[in-house]
């Protein structure tokens, strides 16, 4: 063990570094070969030599000039070239004797690319450069250029100084400079730099101590005045509290241990499902906080006066959401359409009081008013807007992380170096993973070796037919299900109409019958993916990623069309003609429906976990006596989550407390799924590209799910007439008019604000500006994609350039070799002449 990783004074690097050309020979024998090959067809003219000299000269200012032996002092003037050449040649000869390439090797070894990764000087200088950047960004501190050149801890200087005897002195100096740098940084920068240094903790803390001591010495030398001492105390206190705050925040992170356990057993793939669940939880938490603070709380504090008593709690409500819950803060219908006041609730108790009456004359405290319709309108709008922005932001970030690469290069290298998941701890999973990597490597090798295995026409035709059949099955079954849901919902609608005519029926029965539609939809959602899986099994895709994409596509098709039909059912049938089923408040009805769907989705997910994972495991272990356990289907489970989230977003407008239900659901789901996964499943056998999948899931959450939900909500607000006898927007033509009324009123009260009203009329009510906004958004996206495209092109150009520079380097080495060759031959000739004389 000649060398160790750590930075330690007792082991001067040079021991193994570039002491003598003899050592170099071993290290660089590849170059020796190269040079030997190239020098055979050597022979250059003077012009080329001079060019080379010029290049060397330029390098030399930084580089070669530090060469320790005086003979390597390459000339700075072209004119002195000849004399220098002789001098140099003699020196080389005397130094290395027959080793004609030693000078070349020396220069080679001092090249930046050779030294990086070899000496800790390189590391230090790398970080020094980074400090420089930091400092340049903050112009307030003294410029780096103030330092003398030799004071810079550069690798080149380092390497060459190491050649001389005082390598330890150089080491010390290096250290000194590093300490200096650290000390000149601000506290947070210093910490960042210290943490990022690839040195051992002992080294780091020593450096830190030195930096601190120096600083203290400097300060104590200056006799710190009282106030600045106070300042330092304050800084230290703030820093302490910042640390404790950070550790507090860190300890708040949800489910840390559970997530570690899951990832330790199943790796990053399954972990991504749980992380996605956590993300959704945060989205819902945000939505819940906003609606809770601005809608539910004010309304709960000022309950409207209701004449009718509430129905008693029967238990069925938990499933149907109707009955006991129906006239509560949970649903849209409960919210009042007037301005809430602190002290004059009694005065404004009338339910159907319009806003203009609501701002009654006998209300003294005008300042504490709370305009409920406006609050409702803006809370929903703003929360959707912020959610959208967060989604788009995380989507773009995720895109940047996973698709910045050109996929075609160095797949194998990445497989070898980057495929080991250090998170996995369980023995069986470790074994599985190495098997996985092994098969993948074999597949890749086979792919590289004969890239295109020609299929015969017959095989191709057969494949096409199989794919066609599979897709037909999937599309047909989806269409069938969607049509079924359409007619079933119509049937249920008719049923409701009948129910509403003869009122003497059991209300509980009526409530229970409402559950039929959600149950049917959930059953379809549960069973059809199985059918899709069967179809995919029949198709037998070569690449697992294509298989996953196809599965996602089919599931998505099903869910989108089901939700489309349901939205039509709610907004087209129920909302258009609420009187036909004797509804006073269709928003409540739709809200309850969404609640039911959410609950049913949850129940069926539980059933799926029970039957699909737990019982299947028992069956296959006890019945079939197989060791294999079911595999956790990440894609399907994530799509289920996205489906549930879409329901929640759709329902926020009608059921402001739906996010709370969703939060409960997700919390329960996390523990159940975690338990089930740990108990029943085994690590996935398929390779799983986590970054790309995460990106796809976030995109799916944004594009069909969130955009669809917000389109529905916007449509409802914009063009559907709200119920006339309930909710905050009663007696308005559309929900959107609430904003208009408020602006009009504002204008009436304060004529000076007429500008605002006009702006509102032009900007918000005019669809033209909506189109302009959307257009600008699209243009920005377009530009962004163009920029990314351009960057990709630049990357490929730069790669080409790197390759070319490699060629240049080879060329330069050859030339360098030839120079020495030429330099030696005249001296030899001289010596031989001497001997003959």
């Amino acid at each position, binding site marked *: 063990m000649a*060398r*160790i*990783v*750590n930075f330690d004074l007792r082991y001067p690097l040079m021991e193994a570094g570039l002491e003598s050309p003899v050592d170099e020979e071993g290290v660089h024998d*590849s170059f020796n070969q190269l040079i030997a090959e190239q020098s055979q067809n050597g022979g250059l003219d003077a012009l080329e030599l001079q060019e080379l000299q010029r290049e060397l000269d330029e390098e030399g200012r930084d580089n070669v000039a530090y060469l320790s032996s005086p003979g390597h002092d390459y000339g700075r003037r072209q004119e002195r070239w000849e004399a220098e050449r002789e001098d140099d040649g003699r020196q080389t000869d005397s130094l290395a004797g027959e080793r004609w390439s030693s000078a070349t090797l020396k220069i080679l070894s001092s090249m930046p690319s*050779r030294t*990086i*990764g070899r000496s800790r000087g390189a590391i230090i200088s790398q970080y020094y450069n980074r400090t420089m950047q930091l400092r340049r960004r903050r112009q307030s501190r003294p410029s780096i250029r103030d330092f003398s050149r030799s004071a810079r801890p550069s690798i080149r200087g380092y390497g060459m100084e190491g050649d001389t005897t005082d390598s330890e002195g150089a080491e010390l100096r290096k250290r000194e400079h590093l300490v200096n740098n650290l000390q000149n940084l601000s506290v947070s920068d210093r*910490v960042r730099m210290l*943490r*990022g240094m*690839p040195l*051992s*903790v*002992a080294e*780091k*803390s020593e450096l*830190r*101590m030195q930096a601190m001591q120096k600083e203290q010495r400097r300060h104590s030398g200056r006799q710190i005045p009282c106030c600045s001492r106070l300042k330092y105390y304050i800084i230290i206190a703030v820093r302490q509290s910042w*640390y*404790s705050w*950070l*550790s507090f925040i*860190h300890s708040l992170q949800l489910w*840390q241990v559970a997530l*570690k356990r899951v*990832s*330790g057993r199943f790796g*990053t793939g399954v972990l991504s499902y749980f992380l996605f669940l956590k993300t959704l939880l945060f989205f819902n938490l945000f939505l819940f906080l906003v609606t809770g603070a601005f809608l539910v709380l004010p309304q709960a504090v000022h309950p409207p006066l209701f004449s009718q008593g509430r129905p008693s709690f029967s238990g069925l409500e938990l499933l149907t959401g109707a009955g006991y819950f129906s006239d509560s803060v949970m649903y849209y219908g409960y919210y009042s359409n007037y301005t809430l006041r602190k002290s004059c609730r009694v005065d404004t108790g009338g339910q159907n009081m319009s806003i203009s009456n609501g701002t009654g004359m006998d209300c003294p405290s005008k300042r504490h008013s709370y305009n409920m319709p406006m609050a409702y309108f803006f809370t929903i709008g703003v929360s959707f807007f912020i959610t959208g922005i967060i989604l788009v932001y995380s989507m773009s970030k995720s895109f940047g992380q*996973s698709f*910045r*690469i*050109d996929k075609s*290069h*160095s797949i*194998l*290298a*990445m497989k*070898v*170096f*980057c*495929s*080991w998941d*250090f*998170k*996995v*701890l369980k*023995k069986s999973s*470790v*074994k599985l993973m*190495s098997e996985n*990597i*092994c098969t993948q*490597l*074999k597949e890749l090798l086979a792919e590289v070796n004969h890239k295109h295995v020609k299929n015969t026409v017959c095989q191709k035709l057969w494949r096409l037919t199989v794919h066609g059949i599979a897709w037909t099955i999937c599309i047909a079954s989806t269409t069938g299900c969607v049509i079924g849901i359409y007619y079933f919902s119509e049937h249920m609608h008719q049923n409701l109409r009948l129910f509403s005519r003869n009122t003497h029926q059991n209300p509980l029965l009526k409530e229970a019958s409402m559950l039929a539609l959600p149950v049917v939809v959930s059953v379809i959602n549960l069973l059809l993916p199985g059918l899709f899986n069967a179809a995919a099994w029949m198709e037998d895709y070569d690449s697992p990623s294509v298989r996953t994409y196809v599965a996602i596509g089919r599931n998505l098709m099903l869910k989108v069309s089901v939700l489309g039909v349901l939205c039509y059912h709610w907004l087209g049938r129920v909302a258009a003609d609420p009187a036909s089923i004797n509804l006073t408040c269709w928003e409540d009805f739709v809200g309850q429906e969404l609640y039911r769907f959410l609950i049913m989705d949850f129940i069926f997910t539980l059933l799926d976990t029970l039957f699909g994972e737990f019982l299947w495991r028992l069956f296959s272990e006890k019945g079939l006596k197989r060791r294999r356990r079911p595999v956790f289907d990440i894609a399907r489970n994530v799509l289920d989550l996205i489906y549930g989230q879409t329901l929640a977003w759709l329902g926020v407008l009608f059921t402001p407390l739906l996010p709370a239900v969703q939060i409960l659901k997700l919390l329960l789901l996390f523990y159940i799924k975690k338990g089930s996964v740990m108990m029943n499943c085994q690590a996935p056998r398929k390779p799983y590209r*986590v*970054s*790309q999948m995460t990106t796809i899931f976030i995109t799916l959450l944004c594009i069909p799910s969130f955009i669809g939900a917000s389109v529905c909500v916007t449509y409802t607000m914009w063009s559907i007439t709200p119920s006339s006898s309930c909710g905050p927007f009663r007696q308005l033509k559309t929900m959107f008019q609430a904003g208009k009324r408020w602006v009009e009123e504002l204008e009436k009260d304060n004529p000076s604000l007429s500008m605002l009203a006009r702006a509102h009329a032009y900007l918000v009510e005019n669809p033209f500006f909506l189109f302009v906004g959307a257009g600008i958004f699209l243009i920005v996206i377009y530009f962004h994609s163009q920029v990314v495209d351009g960057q990709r092109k630049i990357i490929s150009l730069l790669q080409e350039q790197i390759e070319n520079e*490699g060629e240049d*380097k080879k060329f330069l080495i050859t030339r360098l070799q030839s120079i020495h060759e030429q330099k030696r031959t005249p001296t030899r000739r001289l010596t031989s002449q001497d001997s003959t004389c």
Partner: protein
Amino acid sequence: FFIISCHCTDNVAMSLQDCTYFTRKEILRLFYRYRDLAPQLVPLDYTNHPDVKLPYELIGSMPELKDNPFRQRIAEVFSDDGEGNMTLDDFLDMFSVLSEMAPRDLKAYYAFKIYDFNNDDFICKSDLEKTLNKLTRNELTEDEVRMVCEKVIDEADLDNDGRLSLEDFQHMIVRAPEFLRYSSGNLLFTI
């Protein structure tokens, strides 16, 4: 907890906080982990920087490393003596680099060290062979290993010197989106 936080004086704790990606609490918990490996060897009082080293056998038997094919290399790279025997500082250093907070560059540097079995600061063919055999548990034939090695060097070697330098390695890592996720170890019981 209280006793240790008293022993682990402010200065030491601050210094460790500044040098690793851990908070004070986590450092203490890691100290517990370290001490639990050999309670008779490790003192509770760390104010005077006692010179204590845990042998590799103890470090390698931790659940975090036990089944990792690279455990010995990891311990060697992070240990001060290069043989896998770790002081508390080395121990913290290892977990700091393997934690999720460590930046890509730092991880890449140490990953390079781990894969550089013969410590010559280049990943050459013999290093690659060892890596592959550890990764696949010797499941590949010699021919396959040789071919994979050639291809890998062919793909990742930018300056055509037949082996991978740290720069080559970093350049490749940048294009592997999974690297940052995968290279974070799992500190199962600490955090």
